[in-house]
C-alpha cells in the first residue's frame, strides 16, 4: 500500500475517536518518520491524551504511559537498580521509558529534576541507570502533553534544553463548530480506543524511514531554511534563536511533509507549513518580546519577511 494511502488509513483510524485532527495526525506521522518526539499542548479537555493514545495504538509497538506528578522521581521514569538478597547482587529494573511509544502525560507537573531524566533518553535513545546504559527499542518516541493554562500552579516549565529535544510542538485548539457536532454524535455511543486498529508494522515504519532519505532538498531550499534560522538568531524579540538541532528538524520535517504530499522534492510551501510547529518552541523570547508577542507570531513574521526562492522545487 502506498504511503499516502497508509496516512489516510491512519487518519481514518484515529478519526474513529478523535475528530478534525488531520493536520495534527499528519505532523505526528512526520515525527514518526524521524523518531522525533512530540509535545502536545492545549487547554484541558481538547483530547491531547486521547490523541496520543490513539496514535500509539494505530502505529503499534510497545506502549507505556507515565502520569507525571510533582512526586514522580527520576528513577520512576528511568528505572532502578535494586539489591536482590537471594543472589546478593544489584539487579537492573528498567522503568516505563523502555517502550516504543512513551506517553509522558502532563509532563510539566513533574519537578525539573524528573523532567531532566528524559534528556538523555530523548536525545541519545538510551537510558543510564546507576551507571549502566541500556539502548532503547526502535522505533522510540516520546509523546508528551502539557497544559499551558496552569503554568503558575504546581507546574514547572520545561527547560530550554528539553524543549529543543522535541521535534514538533502541536497546539491542539478547540474544534470547529462542525467537528464539535460530530464529536457529540460519536460520543453518544461507547466508542472505545480499542476500536482503533494497527496501521503500521515496525517493518513498514522502517521502509518509510528509508524512503524519506530519497526526498531531495535543493541548494536554494537549503539557503531558504538557513535564512529562516538565521533570522531567529538576529531578531530583537528573541533572546535564544533556533539551534542547529532545530535547523535539522526543520529540514527533516519539510522532507516529511513533501513525502506525505507525494513529492520527491521539498518546496517552500512545505517549509512554511511545518516551520511554526518545528521552530516556535525552540526560541526563547526576551522580556520585551515575551510581553508583546508570542513565539508563533514571531515565527510567522519571520516567514513573511523571508524571500521565497522562486521555482526552487522545479530546479531540484
Amino acid at each position: 500500500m502506498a504511503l499516502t494511502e497508509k496516512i489516510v488509513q491512519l487518519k481514518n483510524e484515529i478519526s474513529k475517536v478523535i475528530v478534525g485532527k488531520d493536520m495534527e495526525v499528519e505532523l505526528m506521522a512526520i515525527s514518526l518518520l524521524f523518531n522525533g518526539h512530540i509535545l502536545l499542548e492545549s487547554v484541558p479537555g481538547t483530547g491531547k491524551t486521547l490523541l496520543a493514545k490513539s496514535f500509539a495504538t494505530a502505529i503499534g509497538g510497545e506502549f507505556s504511559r507515565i502520569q507525571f506528578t510533582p512526586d514522580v522521581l527520576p528513577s520512576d521514569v528511568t528505572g532502578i537498580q535494586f539489591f536482590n538478597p537471594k543472589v546478593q547482587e544489584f539487579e537492573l529494573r528498567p522503568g516505563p521509558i523502555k517502550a516504543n511509544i512513551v506517553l509522558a502525560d502532563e509532563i510539566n507537573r513533574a519537578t525539573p529534576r524528573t523532567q531532566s531524566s528524559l534528556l538523555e533518553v530523548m536525545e541519545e535513545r538510551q537510558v543510564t541507570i546507576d551507571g549502566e546504559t541500556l539502548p532503547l527499542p526502535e522505533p522510540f518516541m516520546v509523546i508528551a502533553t502539557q497544559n499551558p493554562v496552569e503554568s503558575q500552579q504546581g507546574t514547572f516549565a520545561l527547560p530550554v534544553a528539553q524543549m529543543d529535544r522535541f521535534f514538533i510542538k502541536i497546539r491542539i485548539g478547540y474544534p470547529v463548530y462542525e467537528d464539535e457536532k460530530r464529536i457529540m454524535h460519536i460520543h453518544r455511543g461507547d466508542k472505545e480506543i480499542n476500536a482503533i486498529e494497527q496501521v503500521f508494522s515496525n517493518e513498514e515504519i522502517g521502509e518509510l524511514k528509508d524512503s524519506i532519505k530519497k526526498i531531495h532538498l535543493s541548494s536554494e531550499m537549503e539557503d531558504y531554511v538557513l535564512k529562516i534560522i538565521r533570522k531567529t538568531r538576529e531578531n530583537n524579540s528573541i533572546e535564544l534563536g533556533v539551534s542547529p538541532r532545530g535547523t535539522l528538524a526543520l529540514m527533516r520535517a519539510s522532507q516529511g511533509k513533501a513525502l506525505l504530499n507525494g513529492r520527491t522534492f521539498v518546496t517552500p510551501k512545505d517549509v512554511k507549513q511545518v516551520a511554526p510547529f518545528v521552530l516556535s518552541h525552540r526560541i526563547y523570547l526576551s522580556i520585551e518580546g515575551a510581553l508583546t508577542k508570542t513565539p508563533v507570531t514571531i515565527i510567522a513574521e519571520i516567514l513573511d519577511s523571508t524571500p521565497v526562492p522562486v521555482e526552487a522545487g522545479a530546479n531540484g
Partner: protein
Amino acid sequence: MIWNKYLVEERKIQGINGAAILLIFASLYMQSKLVLYLAVFFLAVSIANQLYLKRVGEGVSIDNIPDKKRLFVNGKSEWTITIQNGGFPILKGELKVFFDHFVAPESSQIESNLFMYEISVPFSIYTQKTKQIWIPYTAKMRGIAKIRKLEIHIPSLFGFGETVLESKHFLKQLAIVYPEPLPVKGLTEQMSILQGTNAVPQSLYEDRLGPVGTRDYVPTDSFNKVHWKASAKSQTLQTKIYETISEIGWNIALNVSNGHSITGSLEKLISGLTEFAYFAHKRNIPYSLCINVRTAGNTSFLYLAKGAGKEHLQKVLETLSSISLQNTSIPYDQMLSFFKNHLPEQPFFIHAGIRKDTTNKLLFDMGKRGIRLFELFIEDEQGVLRGLENRNERRISL
C-alpha cells in the same frame, strides 16, 4: 452585526419632488412629452434616492475577531477593521472610528477630545466585497485602549442625503499599553528565614525528600543522613547532600484610594510596582499582587495569585495597565483583612499607597507572624522602598 441606522435627508429632495409634480401639471397643460419625461426623471431620482438611503447598509458587517495587542509606550501597531458588504454598493463612504486616548493615531493633526480620538477614513466598497482598513497608532500612555464606537457614513449615490450606521457593540480589539517602570531606591533581594520549598543558595533548611548527591561521610554527620545504597556500592560511607530550601516570595498590595477618590500619585505608584515586577522577574522571585479595585470575582478586589516567570509578569503588567481613574475602589483595610484571613502569605509584604492608623494595625499584626513589612512611597519623583517598623511596639531589653 447590529447597527443603529439613521437617515439624513436633504431638503433639496423635497424641492425636486415639488418640481416634478409641477412639471407633470405643466406637461399636461403644454401637452409636451419632453416635460413629462423630465418630470418622470426627477421623480425616478427622488424614489431611487429614498430607496438607496433606506436599503443601503443592509448586509454591511464588520468582522469582530478578538485581538489583543500588547505594547510599550511609543510602540506602534494598528487597528484592523474588515468591512463586508452584502447589500448596495457604497461609494465615497466614510468610516469614523472612536478609540481611547491611550493610543494616538499617526496623524499629528488629530487631537483627542474627552479622552477619545476620532478618526475618519474614506472608503468605497461594491456589493459582495470585503475591504480591510488599517488605522495605525502609537502607544502614548499606560492603559487599555478599545474602539468605543464605529460609524459608517454612506452618502446617497444621487447626492441627496446620507445614511449613518452606528455600531451597537464594542469591537473585540484591545491595545494594552504597559506601564513604564520608575526607579525604586532600596529595592534589593531579601533573604527569608522561613522554611519553604524553594531552592536557595543559603538556608537553615534542607529538602530531605530529594537528595541531590553524595559526599564522603565525616564523623559529625548525622546517622540518618548516610546513603546506604551508595555506601554499599562504593564500599565507603557516603552522606546524602540535600538542596537548601527556604520560603521566598512577596505579597504586594496597592492602595489606590485616597478617601473617597483615587489617589493622585496612582501613576507613580503603578510605575514603582512595575519596577518591582521586572526586578522580581529577573531574580525569579514569585509574588502575588492585590489592588483594592472592586471586581466581581471570588475575591472582591483585584488579586493575582503568587507566580513567577514571563507569563506572570505579563499578567501583572496587564493588571496594572487596566487600573484607571474610573475604577471603583473598596476600603483598603477590608482588602487587607480578607488577605490576612483567606489568602496565602509570603515572607515579605510590600505596601504601596496611603496608610491609615487602622491599616497600620492590620499590617503590624502580619508582622507579628514573622512577615517582614516594607512600604513603597514616592519621593522626589522616584520610588523609595523602606522597612515598616512598629514604633509603638514594646521591646524587652535584657
